[in-house]
């Protein structure tokens, strides 16, 4: 049985209102029981780190995409 990591990203304006739906990205982490000994510690921990980096990158990518898309709408309105 594995564990899950969830990353939430919210972007708020100056008034504290959320500009768009928060981004939620999830990833699967190895269960604690998979750390069976010093022999596999680095390998299993590497899976933790890689998943964490992947989830972080994906959440940031989606959040910046949302931000950019909002930005393009604002520019359009000005014109």
């Amino acid at each position, binding site marked *: 049985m594995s564990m899950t990591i969830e990353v939430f990203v919210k972007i708020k304006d100056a008034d504290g209102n959320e500009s768009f739906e928060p981004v939620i990205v999830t990833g699967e982490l190895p269960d604690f029981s998979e*750390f069976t*000994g*010093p*022999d596999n*510690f*680095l*390998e299993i*921990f*590497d899976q933790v*780190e*890689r998943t964490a*980096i992947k989830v972080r990158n994906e959440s940031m990518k989606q959040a910046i995409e949302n931000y950019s898309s909002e930005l393009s709408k604002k520019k359009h309105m000005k014109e």
Partner: protein
Amino acid sequence: MKNGNFSLYDTGRDVFPKIKPKEKCRTACMDELMLMFPCDESYRDSEAKINRVLWRDEEYGIKSRTLADIVVREGESIQECLLKKTQAILVANGFDEKGQPIAGAIVVTDCEMIDLPQGKPANAIPKEDVKENQCLKVHGVPSNIDSNQSVSSDYSGKPITLAAPINQSPEKVKAAIDNYNKDKPLKKQIDAARVQELYENTQNVVNVSADDVQVVKQKEKDRKKGSPPKENKEWAKNTIVHIMYNKSNYLLNGKGIIGTLMLLTAFMLHNNIAGNGNLVFFVDGARDLQNAIMDMYGWRPYKIILDWFHLEKKCKELLSMVIKGKFVKSIVLTTLLSYLWLGEVDKAIEYLTNLDMNSIKNEKKLNELIGYFNRNRNNIPCYALRKELGLKTSSNSVEKANDNIVANRQKHNGTSWSNCGSVSLASVTTMFKNKEQDNWIKRRTFRFKFHELKLTA
């Protein structure tokens, strides 16, 4: 890690490699990053790039000195791990700690070893006299293996069977000679009657190229700014071995020739190619390397081939000291190389001996060149025919590996190296070239197996 109050293991001691007091344990991703950059760039440039990638400011940034320490420590651990692995493989296969088989570890069942008559060249035995199941010990090194020896001796494991060399058929060799000779003047043709050598098959041949590479050694003491320079230039030495089998490659590096050749023996045993009948070494003219190969592989047949590029270079260097005048030198060099390309060492020596004495400015160097040819006579094949048959003629693969592993990073940039700093960095680079970083960084071990790699290493 704890199970209740019971401590299972200590990650600081049992998992992560030893670190300095203020150093932090590194995860596999971090380790890879910190080892990867210094392979191609100076420690200072690596420091800047890693800190930029990780967005670390000066306070939390990684220091170049730390990077250098990590690389040296990892390189030493790699060498130690490979040494342990080598010893384990050697023992498991019935070899002693010097890389020599103990009695009973090798069985020569499907080929018979023929020693060359003392002091005779490789072509002293006509090829008609060598039967299919016999293998000619080209270099006449006395063997410690008796082909009639009983298997029930010191070694109780499964012995390695030395296979008979698989050579190109006489018809194929003849066809290659005819093809080469077509449209060529008589003087530049391969003399089929003189071709006595056996040519290995293009498939299932273990091609090993070995070379030493030297970098400027740093002073061991008194390295402060403004201190007097060293009296003599000293060198830190690395030995690189490139092994090619069919389309797979592997690189080995080490501090000395013998140690690296032991790694090679273990690697061949681990990959089940130690009993392969066709083992060909490609070397430059360095005597220590050739002698070490002879010492290490006396128990099996092998061939040594002098790299064509080095042979040509030696001729150019020495002839410029021997011959008066550019024009004459150019003619002599062209003629000499045309003989050597065909493997006609006798004709080359005869040509040099009969040169007009008026055109010679240094007889001592002339004798040196003749001595070089005599010494390497057995290692100078008919390069033209080898090329025609699609066989390797040079050690270019290891030369390229030398550049990639050592020279590009450690030479011609004003740097100097300690022995262990140079070998350690080369070991880390070799690990990446062999795509072993996952095995090493996560599991602290090596697969030590061939993998598909670009031929340029």
